């Protein structure tokens, strides 16, 4: 979505950027602070108006662009995301928690009250929802940047696209294409290593295969993945058991539509009955 060119009034006529945290590990917003070469330059282009992890100065909304990290897991989160949407002209959800529920969405497949009792001696003090859900389950989202964690260069691309009134150039192809572009030897074909690359969204630069490891899908599903075929090959040719196949889709992006479907098909007996 290309936003309207009219900016919200800010100091020095710069667009106002806000960074919001919901239930998460902070790693995706940290990616912004990891832009050691670009951070000060970025601060010249946008007004960092709300970023609690980095600044104690808080500017009132509305904001031109909001980066939202984390999933929705508490009654308070549910209300807060509505307010963030109201205050934001362009809302980008960043990372696997915000786009697909994150690792904490494993609770969705279990009994959360039992989970609380495993971790806490006095469960009554703990206020939490039964499910962890992505931002798009609650409010309209203008752009989703996948990854656990996101790629900081892709984040800069999204911000830069916004500043220049164009659509972000984020490839939706698979990790396999990234391997080919890098000239990697295929870990699956050459070594028989189970790899999620064929169905996984690009963005990491085919990191795991570059390190002789099978992809574990931390960037979530690519556009139109052929899940059925992948699972068939994993089971028939690589001898992967059912549990391993489910583990590989139910991890960091378990609620992403395509992965959720595989999980449901292969894990029928494990589905929550409540």
């Amino acid at each position, binding site marked *: 979505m290309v936003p309207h060119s009219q900016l919200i009034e800010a100091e020095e006529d710069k667009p106002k950027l806000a960074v919001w*945290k919901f*239930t*998460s*590990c*902070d*790693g*995706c*917003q*940290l*990616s912004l*602070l*990891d832009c*050691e070469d670009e*951070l*000060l330059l970025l*601060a010249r282009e946008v007004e*960092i108006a709300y*970023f*609690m*992890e*980095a*600044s*104690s*100065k*808080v500017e009132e909304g509305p904001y031109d662009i909001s980066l939202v990290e984390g999933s929705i*897991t*508490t009654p308070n*989160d549910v209300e807060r995301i509505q307010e963030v949407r109201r205050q934001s002209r362009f809302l980008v959800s960043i990372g696997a928690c915000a786009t697909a529920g994150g*690792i*904490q969405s*494993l*609770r969705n497949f*279990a009994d*959360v009250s*039992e*989970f*609380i009792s*495993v*971790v*806490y*001696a*006095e469960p009554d*003090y*703990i206020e*939490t929802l039964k499910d962890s859900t992505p931002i798009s389950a609650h409010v309209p989202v203008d752009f989703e940047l996948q990854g*656990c*964690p996101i790629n900081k260069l892709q984040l800069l691309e999204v911000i830069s696209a916004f500043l220049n009134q164009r659509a972000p150039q984020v490839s939706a192809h698979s990790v396999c294409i990234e391997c080919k572009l890098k000239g990697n030897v295929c870990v699956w074909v050459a070594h028989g290593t189970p790899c999620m690359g064929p169905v996984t969204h690009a963005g*990491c630069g085919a*990191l*795991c295969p*570059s*390190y*002789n*490891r099978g992809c*574990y899908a*931390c960037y979530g599903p690519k556009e139109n993945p052929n899940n059925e075929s992948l699972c068939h090959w994993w089971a028939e040719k690589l001898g992967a058991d059912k*549990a*391993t196949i489910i*583990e590989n889709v139910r*991890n960091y992006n378990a609620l992403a539509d395509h992965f959720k479907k595989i999980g449901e098909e292969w894990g029928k007996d494990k589905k929550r009955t409540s």
Partner: protein
Amino acid sequence: MSGKGKTIKVDYLARVEGEGALFIRYDDNHVHEVQLKIFEPPRFFEAFLRGRDYTEAPDITARICGICPVAYQMSALHAMEDALHLVPTSELKALRRLLYCGEWIESHMLHVSMLHAPDFLGYPSAVAMAKDHPEVVQQALEIKKAGNALLRLLGGREVHPINVRIGGFYRTPTKEQFESLREQLSAARDLAERMCRWAASLPFPENTQKFEFVALVNPDEYPMNEGRIQSSEGLDISVKDYEKHFREVQVPHSTALHSVLIERDSYLVGPMARFNLNYPRLSTGVKRVAEELGFNPPCSNPFKSIVVRCLEVLHAFDEALRIIDNYQPPEHPYLTVEPREANGCAATEAPRGLLYHRYGINAQGKITQAKIVAPTSQNQKTIEKDLRLMLPNFMHLPESQLQGLCERAIRNYDPCISCSTHFLQLHLQHDQQGSS
């Protein structure tokens, strides 16, 4: 009844990782109550780890914290290897230490320059500080970048690295791969030395306190992955006995569990504890700088922890360069073992302090039990105690300054609320004198 009730509130403490609140009730003579409230939503790692494969523990627990994922990977690996009696070779151990050096540099420099330094110079953020002090911020970013470059080479990426596995690494680097990195580290090391001098020149509020410091202690090296757990009050135990001496208790105002030493009470983990218990094993270069600055252990003023972090960064550079210079690629990137029913535990030194993991696994290698104690949940009670003891000495300050000082006192500990689970709101309530 005399005096007027006063309240100071900060709804969301800035420049810490995660979300928390603070509540303080006091009058002119006493501090009645200090609660560090942590209500960042719980994520239930210990619960959903059950049933997952033991090989997944390092990658899953890394997701507890985007700032210190390597620490989680290290504690998880060592705990699983303890369970399976797998002992990595000395080459693999050195590479793990090298990876940890990258994280100490990156995490400490993030705190020193972006979260902590603005407090001393009166800025809301490092970006605002950069307008007047560009050289300090740029140098800090260069140092941080070198730490991240190390993480990228050895781990694949800065946040949630992908290259570690139980038994070793997926792929180990060649000697040549370290060549250009060595230059970058060496240049950043000199900047880090300057950063130590700069940090030591900052104005520090006087707030010396009595702590029980707890850290790993290892006769051969400044502690990262191995050692016994020792304290400044004479505790000296094997990591296996951690749960016999430390207990977690739940309090109503926090989604993070409070950790206490059963025999005594609150204690402190992290850079100050490591520095005070392990000073002789810092590199010669670090000790020379510390002596020049007159910065000797014990350091008991948490405001000065910024100097300790800088010295630890310098040590991490010296250590990284030493490991790279002695590097011989391991014969095999990893060792293998078959899973069996077993229990194991480990503690390593995360940038913020002792990080304890314990797991049970079954014969199929599925996790049956997990326990994780993060540094910030261990320090929570000490942070509350620090505020209780510090406040009476600063009652002469106007309330707006007192509030700022409380926020700073919390940031001194570099609390990682995401790790401990979590949210920081500050409510400072001034009671009417003579009441309650």
